[in-house]
């Protein structure tokens, strides 16, 4: 049963456009994440938030900016997309702490043409 909801599931856009992905979790977790899964299926963390506070910010281009209004929501905005941004963006949540399970959403597939 899905408890991490992402929208949109699929988006096609042109180079230079702005795109936003939304994520909501209903698990009551304190920690949320954005992961990028590229065409080779490599899974790389981009950001993680704990109770609206940014706690992990990997080496990500400046055009990516996360936004969190409360601990249940974490959005991702890409200001000016590039072809290499084509990927599946996976939102996840956990209760935080070492060893806690990540629960992933269904993903938002971005195609940049």
């Amino acid at each position, binding site marked *: 049963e899905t408890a991490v909801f992402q929208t949109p599931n699929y988006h096609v856009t042109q180079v230079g456009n702005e795109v936003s992905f939304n994520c909501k979790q209903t698990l009551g977790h304190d920690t949320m994440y954005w992961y990028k899964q590229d065409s080779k*299926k*490599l899974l*790389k963390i981009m950001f*993680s938030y704990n109770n609206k506070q940014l706690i*992990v910010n990997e080496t990500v281009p400046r055009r990516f900016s996360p936004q969190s209004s409360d601990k249940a929501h974490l959005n991702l905005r890409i200001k000016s997309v590039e072809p290499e941004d084509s990927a599946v963006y996976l939102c996840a949540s956990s209760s935080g702490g*070492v060893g*806690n399970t990540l*629960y992933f*959403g269904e993903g938002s597939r971005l195609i940049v043409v």
Partner: protein
Amino acid sequence: GDSVTQTEGLVTLTEGLPVMLNCTYQTIYSNPFLFWYVQHLNESPRLLLKSFTDNKRTEHQGFHATLHKSSSSFHLQKSSAQLSDSALYYCALSNSAGNKLTFGIGTRVLVRP
């Protein structure tokens, strides 16, 4: 930084035969937490099993793995593969704060009749 190395590429096997997927890791953290996530086609990754106890076998859904700190390994095994085991398997390592999972490149398993 932390890193995870997995069996690369595609593992093809016949239904009923055993499967073993290799995973080794590197970290300076003395109490690493290791995970196996599985991703079926058109789905998002979900937890298969996890462990932080040295030399203790962990089992779930017919799969098992044992964390061996002496060899920095957490190999995934199953005695008899099923068609439904065809999927992408990720080994992952938690950082000491528990707010970041580092994933291996993933191993695709194809089980044939």
